[in-house]
């Protein structure tokens, strides 16, 4: 046995002497990794790897060969410099809350967990930008920015724990992206480490472009860990809205819900967020600690408007009128922070709430033209009912970003296959109506099989050339985004 962590396993001094004489390249993986990360942590025992087998899709498990936790950005660079010689896939991981099977070791290899890179290095409130390390969590950033009167708009539901690194890798969205746009709209610059250990800055803070043409940062955003490791970002910030109103409207059926969504979207002063929970989603909220008195058995719309107080106050009556005219059973609205936060907490916990009903679920992330909303949602219910699978819809209605959740039991033979068949039929219909695969979750390994539904052979060949330019052997996060991206050591 060799020294692993300094706590549980160690060698007596005599053995240690002989062990030190063995060339590093002949030593076990743990020793080689420890040499690259003298201050960080290296996990290699089977019981230390189990937790890293899955991301937010808990039912899919791929055990890595090792997990490393660099102590800081400097150590991450040092690690990347040594990874080529290890001959193993390298998978970056933020908080592992993604729903795409992205930060998991499908082909084995080393997971690099960036939880220690948590510094907010600079806040320039006058210039509306900040510099953060890749392991900073979204809610921590929000709390730090708030006293400065600024905010970072993307707000994926996993905000309490997800990291900026994961957000940039998957070009994350969130409820308020309907008005504010997704992550790529707020990234001024990315510092990335390539497999040779070279550090590159794509873009930078306002006025600072860095050595690369600025638009090249777009290759990094949404690259899902296939190009490089991220150490830090420069983020664009906005002034905090002066006032916010949140509306809660309930509807008896899909048709009336859809007409409310259309009316809201078409309004000249459209909301910041339009979210929908179906009756099953509402029931799960009400049977959890996030219960907030939602009327059961109805479709729920959660709508938010924000901006200068006088302007926003003037919009309250028109928005509630739109919601009512579409056929709402009831409409409630509030500017109270405690009430608003409770509603949002219930909405954003939706993924976890599914655990009340089923041990495993598959969530799709399709984006469709809004005119097809009711039709595609009905297809989800019909297909799921026919297969005896429960489906729950909780999603970003404003931008047509569907999240149908198909619940199944991974311990029952054939259950997952049923869900995969429904998902495929859904995706085919999504493409037919002019939609696409993913709005914000990324492709990962969960949706890579659907890529040929959207992209032709020429497009796939050209897209594959990009990661190949950065790491020809596909050592970074293989078998993600493209099924054929296998690491050949």
């Amino acid at each position, binding site marked *: 046995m060799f020294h692993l962590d300094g706590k549980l396993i160690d060698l007596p001094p005599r053995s240690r002497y002989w062990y030190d004489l063995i060339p590093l390249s002949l030593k076990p993986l743990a020793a080689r990794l420890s040499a690259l990360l003298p201050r960080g942590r290296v996990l290699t025992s089977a019981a230390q790897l189990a937790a890293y087998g899955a991301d937010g899709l808990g039912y899919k498990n791929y055990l890595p060969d090792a997990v490393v936790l660099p102590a800081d950005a400097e150590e991450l660079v040092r690690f990347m410099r040594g990874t080529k010689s290890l001959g193993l896939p390298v998978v970056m991981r933020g908080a592992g809350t993604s729903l795409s099977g992205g930060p998991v070791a499908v082909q084995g290899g080393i997971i690099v*967990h960036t939880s220690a890179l948590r510094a907010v290095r600079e806040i320039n409130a006058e210039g509306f930008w900040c510099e953060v390390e890749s392991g900073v969590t979204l809610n921590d950033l929000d709390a730090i920015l708030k006293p400065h009167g600024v905010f970072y708009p993307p707000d994926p539901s996993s905000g309490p724990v997800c990291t900026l690194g994961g957000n940039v890798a998957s070009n994350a969205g969130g409820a308020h992206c309907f008005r504010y746009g997704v992550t790529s709209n707020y990234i001024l610059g990315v510092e990335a480490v390539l497999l040779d250990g070279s550090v590159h800055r794509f873009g930078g803070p306002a006025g600072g472009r860095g050595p690369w043409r600025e638009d090249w940062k777009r290759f990094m955003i949404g690259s899902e860990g296939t190009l490089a490791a991220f150490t830090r970002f420069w983020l664009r910030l906005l002034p905090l809205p002066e006032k916010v109103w949140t509306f809660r409207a309930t509807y008896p059926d899909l048709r009336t819900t859809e007409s409310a969504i259309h009316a809201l979207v078409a309004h000249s002063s459209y909301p910041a967020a339009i979210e929908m929970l179906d009756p099953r989603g509402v029931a799960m909220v009400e049977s959890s600690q996030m219960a907030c008195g939602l009327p059961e058995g109805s479709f729920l719309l959660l709508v938010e408007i924000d901006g200068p107080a006088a302007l926003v106050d003037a919009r309250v009556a028109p928005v509630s009128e739109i919601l009512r005219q579409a056929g709402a059973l009831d409409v409630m609205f509030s500017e109270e922070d405690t009430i608003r936060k409770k509603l949002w907490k219930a909405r954003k916990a939706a993924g976890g709430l599914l655990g009340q009903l089923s041990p495993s679920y598959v969530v799709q992330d399709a984006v469709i033209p809004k005119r097809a909303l009711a039709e595609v949602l009905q297809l989800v219910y019909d297909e799921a009912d026919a297969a005896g699978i429960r489906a729950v819809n909780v999603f970003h209605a404003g931008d047509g970003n569907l999240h149908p959740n198909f619940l199944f039991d991974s311990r029952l033979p054939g259950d997952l296959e049923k869900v995969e068949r429904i998902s495929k039929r859904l995706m085919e219909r999504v493409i037919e109506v002019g939609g696409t695969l993913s709005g914000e979750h990324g492709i990962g390994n969960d949706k890579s099989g659907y890529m040929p539904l959207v992209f032709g052979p020429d497009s796939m060949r050209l897209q594959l050339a990009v990661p190949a330019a950065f790491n020809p052997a596909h050592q970074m996060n293989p078998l993600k985004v493209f099924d054929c991206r296998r690491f050949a050591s």
Partner: protein
Amino acid sequence: MDPEAPSSHFSNCTHCGFCLAVCPTYKLTGDENNSPRGRLRLWSEEAAGRLPPDKWTDFYTEECVGCLACETACPATVPYGEIFERIRHQHVVSHRSQPKMALRLAAAAVAIPSLFNLALLPGRILRQTGLSFHRFLFPGRPPVLKSSAAYAAELMSQRRPTGPRVAFLTGCLMEAMFREINFATIRVLIENNVQVLIPLDQGCCGAFQEHTGLGDPEALGARNRRAFSSLDVDAVVSNSSGCGYALGKSLKPGGSVRDVLGFLGDLGPVRRERAPGDATRVYVDLPCHLVHGQKTPGIPAQVLDATGYRWELAPNSRDCCGSGGVYNIQKPENARAILAAKSAFLNEAEGQPVVLATSNHVCMMQWHSAGATGLVKRAYEVRHVIQLLDPGADFS
């Protein structure tokens, strides 16, 4: 791990990761194994036979503070605390894990309250004389010989309150070492016209056994069910959120336990008046087992208002202070690191004097240690909220 334990106990965890954000040991180490999601994965893999028993599983299990903040954060309503307690008990029974010797001795002693009271007599004397300098022993003047039961009976016959009747859990450590808080609780209740009964046959609530994985909490629970369930009272109350949480589980189904501050909040307690110009500032920390265990909203604002002091919640008041029952004895380094982050605000806190108030004696011990070990460099007092409502020893 019990091979017969059904893996379905773990199965409603969807791996969403919301628990990571609130877990003190994940925040401390950044290691996902050291989080509720990670531990549940380890335990379920072992239960399903995919992972053999491993010292790292034992290590990460021991690392858990047991604060239950993850239960509040969990949308899937995974009963983490129940699972964790069962696994910890199994690890101790099967010798995969062993609490420190002092805790094993204490666990044996608390099962016999009279023995535990006698064993801690020197501690009461030292605190009474102001000569206790241990980092956990916050200042106080506990009555050395008179028991809380005797005091309650005496005060009841003098004041003859006519309001609601409560049965009061006096606790083990609270009674044996910090008895002055029990006395204050009795005075406050009786001043608020509450009739206080103290069942003499009550025993340890089982919290100590749960924290250590030792002993038989079920046997202790049976004893307390006999002591409390047959009483004709409006409520069973506790002045320690950890003890109240443990006793509450024992009395289920059919019975429940109220935290004494929540109970007083419903009554609207007598307000204490303070001198004009009193610059005292009270920072209130909410014990984990009050908000995450008993799942109450916290300490009622009207109770805190009734203290007559200017008060506010301490920063991150719903987060763990690192006490974790006996966690600060089992894992002192982690407990100190958690406390360091949590207590840093006291160095800059406004007020003269500054009071850190909470409602659990083990949290009070942990908060006192922040000053005693140099984490907090300025003077501050640690008090139970009930002490801030106390009419004083002259009340009779």
